[in-house]
Structures are given as C-alpha cells and as structure tokens.
C-alpha cells in the first residue's frame, strides 16, 4: 500500500497526538496535578504487566471477554435473524421494528433487574451485550437487505430464483457492506453492555474489578482494568475496520 503525502502527514500527526496524550497522562501523574487518584502512565503499565498479577487480570479478562464474545455472537445471530425474518415476511416488519427500538430505548440499567431475575447475575452482562449488539445489527441488516438493486431483483425473478436462493445469492451479499459496518459499531456496544452488566453484581470480570477498585481506592488497579477494556475494544474495533474496508471493496 502506497501512501500519499497528506496521508503520511495525517498518520504522523495521529501518532504524535497519541504520544502527546500518553506524555500528558504521565506528567499529570508525575506532578500530581490531578491529585492522588491520577497515576502515571508508567505506574499503570508496571502494575498491569507485573507477573504476579497475571492471574488476576487473566481471570478477569477471561470472564469478561467470554461474556462479550458470547453476547456479540448471540446479538449478531438474533439481529441478523430478525432482520431476515422481517425482510422475508414484510407484514411482520413494523412489529419487529417497534419491538427492537422499544428494547433499545430501555436503558441497560433498567433491564438489569429483569435479567438478574430471569437469568442470573453472572450472565447479565452477556444479556445486555446481546441486546446492544442485536439492535445495531438489526438496524444495519434491515437497511442493508433493502439495498439490492432493482435490476438485480428483476434478473433473479426472470431466472426463476426461489426466495431462499435470492436471499443467499443476492440479498445477503448486497447487505454485507452494511452488516459489516454494523458489526464494527457493535463492538464498543458489546463491551459497554458487558461492563454495565458486571457492575450490577457479577462475581468476576473487568467490570467488577473496576467497581471494587473504585470503592477501595486501588488506583492503579482501577486504571489498569479500564485500560484493558478500552485497549481490547479499540483493537477489536480496528480489526473490524479492516474487515469493513475489505468487504466494501469487494461487495459494492
């Protein structure tokens, strides 16, 4: 890949910005400009990569990431399934639309008690992540499925395509760019859902680590937990952006 001059400049400035941000973080901590609850960047990194804490963070990450991944996959499947259903059975669409946006309008904090009763404390994070992801994917997929072009639809009709063939060979491929964009925006949504869910009383995970560190003034632990969650979400988002670029180049 060859970059043009402005692109190189953008990249350099972006990297510079990140470095300045980390430097600022370090200096504010060093000079205690924000008080004792702002640790230096280096302190957080030292804390984070200390071998003795590998087990602690490993367990928390294992618990949270499995909830996030589970919620993401479940939300994706339900969202795509609902979109395909409302696309195939058009009369059902308004009802499914309304249900999806009503569920989305309920703040997760209000859904938590329901899930705690219905499911269990442990999987509440996964359930909220599922709902967050479901909505993003549902919206992206329903708009994507409408994107097949009229002449392609005519072609499939003349060729005598069945509904399922048309879905598989025309509607889904045409929807893929929208779906993948939805998948990208669903990643932070999954993280938010899982962390929020853990705040309502999970016994493991990064979210629990954050709340207990906050309540017990374990400042480096608090910042480390938030750092892990943010970095992981950012990496997932970055990978999804790469996938998105590939798919947009290929399918549209």
């Amino acid at each position, binding site marked *: 890949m060859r970059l043009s001059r402005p692109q190189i400049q953008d990249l350099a400035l972006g990297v510079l910005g990140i470095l300045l941000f980390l430097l600022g973080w370090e200096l504010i901590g060093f000079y205690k400009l924000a008080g004792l609850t702002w640790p230096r960047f280096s302190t957080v990194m030292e804390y984070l990569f200390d071998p003795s804490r590998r087990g602690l963070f490993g367990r928390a990450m294992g618990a949270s990431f499995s909830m996030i991944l589970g919620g993401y996959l479940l939300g994706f499947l339900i969202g795509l399934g609902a979109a395909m259903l409302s696309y195939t059975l058009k009369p059902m669409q308004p009802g499914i639309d309304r249900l999806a946006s009503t569920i989305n309008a309920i703040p997760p904090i209000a859904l938590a008690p329901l899930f705690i009763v219905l499911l269990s404390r442990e999987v509440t994070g996964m359930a909220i992540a599922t709902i967050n992801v479901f909505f993003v994917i549902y919206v992206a997929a329903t708009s994507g499925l409408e994107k097949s*072009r009229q*002449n*392609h639809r*005519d*072609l*499939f*009709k*003349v*060729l*005598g*395509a069945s509904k399922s*063939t048309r879905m598989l*060979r*025309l509607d889904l*491929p045409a929807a*893929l760019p929208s779906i993948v964009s939805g998948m990208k925006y669903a990643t932070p949504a999954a993280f938010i859902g899982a962390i929020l869910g853990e705040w309502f009383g999970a016994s493991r995970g990064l979210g629990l680590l954050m709340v207990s560190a906050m309540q017990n003034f374990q400042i480096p632990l608090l910042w480390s937990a938030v750092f892990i969650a943010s970095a992981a979400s950012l990496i997932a988002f970055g990978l999804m952006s790469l996938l998105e670029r590939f798919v947009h180049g*290929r*399918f*549209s």
Partner: protein
Amino acid sequence: MSPETAINVDHVGMVFTLDDGTELTAVRDVDIKIGKGEFVALLGPSGCGKSTILRLVAALEEASFGRVTIEGQDPAELSRAHRLGVAFQDHALLPWLTVKDNVALPYKVAGKKVDTTRVKELLELVGLGKFAGARPSQLSGGMRQRVSIARALVLRPDVLLLDEPFGALDAVTRRHMNVELQRIWAEDEVTTLLVTHSVEEALFLADRVLVMTGRPGTVAMEMKIPFARPRDPSIQRTPEFHAMADKLTLALEPEA
C-alpha cells in the same frame, strides 16, 4: 413468420397506477406474434412502452388487458422452469462475483450443477476467455455487456429477451457488438425479442422489425428484413439497407 408461434402478445394493454393514484396507460392493444427461432426487434422512441412489453414477456409485470403466452404457457411458468434468458441495458452483473461465476449464476439459481465447459465455451464465444477470473469492475462497458449476454444464453433458454443491451455503449463499440451478437445468436437461433432505439441495430440483427409509437404505445408498422444470414457488416452500406432505414426512421417520427 415461421409456422409455430413461440411468443404470443395477445391484444395486450398495460395501465400503471402512479403514486398519486392517477392512472397511466403505457401501451394499448399491442398484438405481437413471434415464431419459434425468430429474431424480432422492437423499435421505438423513448417512453412508447418497449420495455413494458419486454417486461410482460419476462413475467416481470402482469398485463392489465389481454394476455401474454409463451408456447401456450404463462411466462411466469417459463421463468420458474428457468427457461428465460435476459440482458438489460444496465448489465446487472453481481459485483461480488467473478466473470465466470456471474455467467454460472443461472445454474446456481436453477439448483443445477454448473456445466463448467459450457461456461468456458460461452466466455470464449464472447471473446472473454482470458477474463474468467476478473471482476465486473475491472471490465469495460462493452465487455460487461458481453458477459451479461453470455449469462443470458448459458442455460440454452427457450426465449432470449434483450432490452437495449448496447444502449449505453458508444457507436463504434455498439456496431462491433452487433456483429458479435449476430455470430453468437447464430449458434443456437433461439427465439429472441430485442428492444432498441437504433434503426441500424434492428435492421442488422432482426428477421422482423416492429415499430412502436405514441403514448400510449401501439405497434405502428411491421417490416420483414430479407437479408440472408450470416450477415456481413457491409450490408449496412447497401442501398436496400438505406432505403429500409429511411422508411423505419420515417415511421418513428410522430406525424412530422
């Protein structure tokens, strides 16, 4: 006309209901019979209802009056049996498939096993053997149109429907494509309905030319084209050709 009627457009009228509720009569009392293996060109000015007729034959619309049959059957039955081939002005290739896979698409849609040798032969026939693995976006407009014609023919359809397949091409490429289409068509001599704006294209390709005019459109004139096949491009410079072209052009002008 050949003795056996393949496509029968039987006194067909078509009324569209527009979004604001008003009704628009697109075509009125159109009566066309196309024999088996015959190549008919439908010529007419923009908006006279040529595409409407083609879409009726392709089972993409339902006639408001009269009836369209193909070999006695409803066109929808032919499309359900995967026996129609179609190419539009806009190539309608799927951008995510390679050229080869686009041509193989009708097999997949029909749930049949892809006959790779047939796909290959057709790609050779339209002169795109080397581009089998390319994507539509990497081809020129003329090449894409050739792919879409190959796709229309791949299942050896009973009826071939072409709606201005070369309408978006420049004049030179278009003439070249007409020569190619004639050669490809000669392989199978499948019953064909071609919709076009171009008098020369209609004369060069068809056994019979129908002129549609007016709004709502009706068939105003019919002309048999006597040139023997295979036709050489040089016939387009003969006096007969010019005389016929003048006659058709005159028929196209609305009472001028």
